[in-house]
């Protein structure tokens, strides 16, 4: 059962415009959320994260929004650049002691058109 879902497999955006990538989750125990960026033949690279006690976290061109009541988060990239073209994975982890493995979505391929 997929606990983290990215329902848009792909997204195309013009350079300079905003890219919005969406993610939904089902497990209310998740309390930390991350976005990873992945280029072909490379491992995922950490991009930005947010704790469940916040509803927004910003880092330069990247902002993540969390709506806990809707179990939804989104990643905004403004302005989008051609170098942002990659697959973006949403991931979530649970609190508490013990194993804290990440649950990943299936990814959204972002293409930024020059």
């Amino acid at each position, binding site marked *: 059962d997929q606990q983290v879902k990215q329902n848009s497999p792909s997204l195309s955006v013009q350079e300079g415009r905003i890219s919005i990538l969406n993610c939904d989750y089902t497990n209310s125990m998740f309390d930390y959320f991350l976005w990873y960026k992945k280029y072909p033949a490379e*491992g995922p690279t*950490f991009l930005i994260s947010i704790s469940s006690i916040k509803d927004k976290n910003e880092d330069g061109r990247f902002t993540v929004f969390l709506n806990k009541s809707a179990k939804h988060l989104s990643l905004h990239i403004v302005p989008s650049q051609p170098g942002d073209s990659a697959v973006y994975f949403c991931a979530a982890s649970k609190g*508490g002691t013990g194993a*804290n*493995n990440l649950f990943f979505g299936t990814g959204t391929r972002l293409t930024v058109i020059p």
Partner: protein
Amino acid sequence: EAEVAQSPRYKITEKSQAVAFWCDPISGHATLYWYRQILGQGPELLVQFQDESVVDDSQLPKDRFSAERLKGVDSTLKIQPAELGDSAMYLCASSFSQGVSSETQYFGPGTRLLVL
């Protein structure tokens, strides 16, 4: 900048053969993870180590997969015998500690396995 190292980057093998992957985490990171990513899907955890101890291997197919981290530093993941369905990207990640959900995991470049 410190990175997670993995080798080999690519491996082609025939089914029923044995394969092994190696991972060296970021120095000082106590927690090490092995994930498998099948094409078109997100990574899924196979095994997690805290130092040399296994914390979670519930998703590891133990009839053919094994993992070890003998000295609590680098780690080896082995498949014997390999099956066609094992073709995937095998990713290693590390984090400073475990048990805290806000610990960021840093990934290596992965090993792409193709079983023929």
